[in-house]
């Protein structure tokens, strides 16, 4: 325990997450609705990641990783289901463009990140 603890441990009335949750949500909505793949994926990652951060900071969870993984799973399921219903290229009743795909990719990335965080970061800190 040589390192100093985080901002929100030292300062009871500060938290770095809310600002980025707001930005992440905005980028995610913008990206998904305007079908801008990179913005959609990036925004969703930012949103989910920061939600994980704030949940563990507030003490609702011990670490952020399960929460991020869980939300990632939800996004992946929704994205894949939408892609199955309305396939790429406009086969279904609606042409979703790359929207569903970007949601699914973001979800899978979240799940991967969660796994990575759990394995790498937590192992590092136990050493």
């Amino acid at each position, binding site marked *: 325990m040589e390192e100093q603890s985080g901002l929100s441990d030292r*300062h009871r009335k500060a938290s770095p997450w809310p600002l980025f949750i707001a930005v992440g*949500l*905005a980028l995610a909505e913008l990206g998904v609705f305007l079908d801008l*793949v990179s*913005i959609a994926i*990036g925004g969703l990652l930012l949103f989910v990641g920061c939600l994980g951060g704030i949940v563990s900071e507030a003490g609702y969870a011990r*670490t952020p990783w399960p929460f991020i993984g869980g939300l990632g799973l939800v996004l992946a399921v929704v994205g894949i289901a939408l892609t199955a219903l309305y396939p790429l290229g406009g086969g279904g009743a609606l042409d979703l463009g790359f929207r569903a795909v970007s949601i699914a990719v973001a979800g899978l990335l979240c799940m991967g990140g969660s796994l990575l965080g759990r394995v790498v970061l937590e192992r590092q800190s136990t050493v």
Partner: protein
Amino acid sequence: MQIDGQIALTVLMGLLLLIVAGWIARIEDWRSYTPLASGGGRAVDDTAYETQEKPGGLVRWLTTVDHKDIGILYGIFGTFALMWGGATVALMRTELFTPEQVLMEPTTYNALMTSHGITMLFLFGTPMIAAFGNYVIPLLIGADDMAFPRINAIAFWLLPVAGTLIWSPFVLMSLGIEPAQTGWTMYPPLSVNQSALGIDFMLLGLHLSGISATLGAINFIATIFTERAPDVGWERLDIFSWTMLTQSGLILFAFPLLGSVLLMLLLDRNLGTTFFTTDGGGYILYQHLFWFFGHPEVYILVLPPMGLVSLILPRFAGRKLFGFKFVVYSTLAIGVLSFGVWAHHMFTTGIDPRIRSAFMAVSLAIAIPSAVKVFNWTTTLWSGRLRLTVPMLFCIGFVSNFIIGGVTGVFLASIPVDAVLHATYYVVGHFHYIVMGAIGFALFAGVYYWFPLVTGRMYQRSLGLIHFWLSFIGTNVTFFAMILLGYGGMPRRYAEYLPQYATLHQVTTIGAFLIFIGGVVFLWNIGQSWLEGPRVEDGDPWNLKEDGLVTQEWTWFEQKLETRLADGGEPSDDETAMADGGERE
């Protein structure tokens, strides 16, 4: 070209994510979240750290979860939105000074009009009310903070993002992004058929601001229900908290609906769904859904200002509010009835007369609870010992304007009268008497009343008086002329008009510029006084003790001043000084 754009976006997005991750990793050590790994020593270590409340500098404002800081942030954002909304209307009124088009294209006029309405309702009115609620309510009810401080911060930060989305099309016009020209009601088919990218931006921004308002409302309800100090029972709850509670309840029922409607519009626009097309749900469906949100929105905006006036006006009349419980009961009555009046915005759409009749009945009934409050304020003034401070003048101005705005509204509730006056300047005049003459005035009263509390300094009374008289005269000149224009049959939302309306339009424009100049004086007063106004040494700057009318927040202020004096003017580390938010001198 398109692929290049995609790559550029991806690179930008990746950079943003890296920067955010790096910044957070720097200030927020993730390993501290694994208590087991740190050998369970955190509890011990915590005490070893110097526990300041907040970091310093800009980081403090970006990361704060303190209700007072967030209140100030809301206030600053609201002021910026007021400037934007004021600038747009100044341009519009300049164009309307002459009947023919001189200054701008009618499309630009429409875009400015849309931006003015959206900005003033969603980005000035609602946030400014939240500013007072955040700063004052925890102090009034004796709570340490809001019930969910982090959600509070999320709710605030959604607003600048929403504002950026809504305003950016004006800045990005040169890139070919057209601003929305739909009017604030965004009726389809216009809002679906217009291809302007600005409409998508606006809908997304509004959606985010709706999420923000809903999060804020949940927070206020939880705070008022669960965080009251033991000695603040329901019967001792102050009137401003009552109105905020009712308002939050309304938000909880109204804003999620707005969110869904906006998403449906977005889907109609971008994915070709048929929620609001003729062979789908129909345009009337949109109007029903929109106004089911839209009319409660009116009360969402007006109830807390009524609470402000009910709180401030008696302090300068030297006596308690007459019929406190009348005001509580009528506030709640408004809360219920406001959900049964929405179709009075649709009297001329051809809906069945029986539906219209039902809505007329409820619309006429809802006038009573509002009128009851007017009688309460008037009787409070009656034989009171009036002190005409700037906040008091704004309160009296509120009552005066509210009477005109309210009475003109009652006529509109009647179907045959509405059939004649619908979509004329009469309607514009009526609701501006409420949103500017009443809501705006009450918010100004709140700013002046709590200016010493928030800044520790006093505003300049002479400038405050100039602001009041310019606003009061300006409001009445502008909006009374609009009512007369409406009687003459001048339709709203036009950039050009027939020469016969020129005189009244010129009067309106002159009035609008009086308000505008008043607003500039206000900004100057607030800015300069905050930086170099005389310091308040007395914990009771309004001499409320004399009449036994002190409320909780001033007691808190007095304690804060005393602690500071005792420590030689420096904020200390003990509990009371911490409550002042660690302000640096």
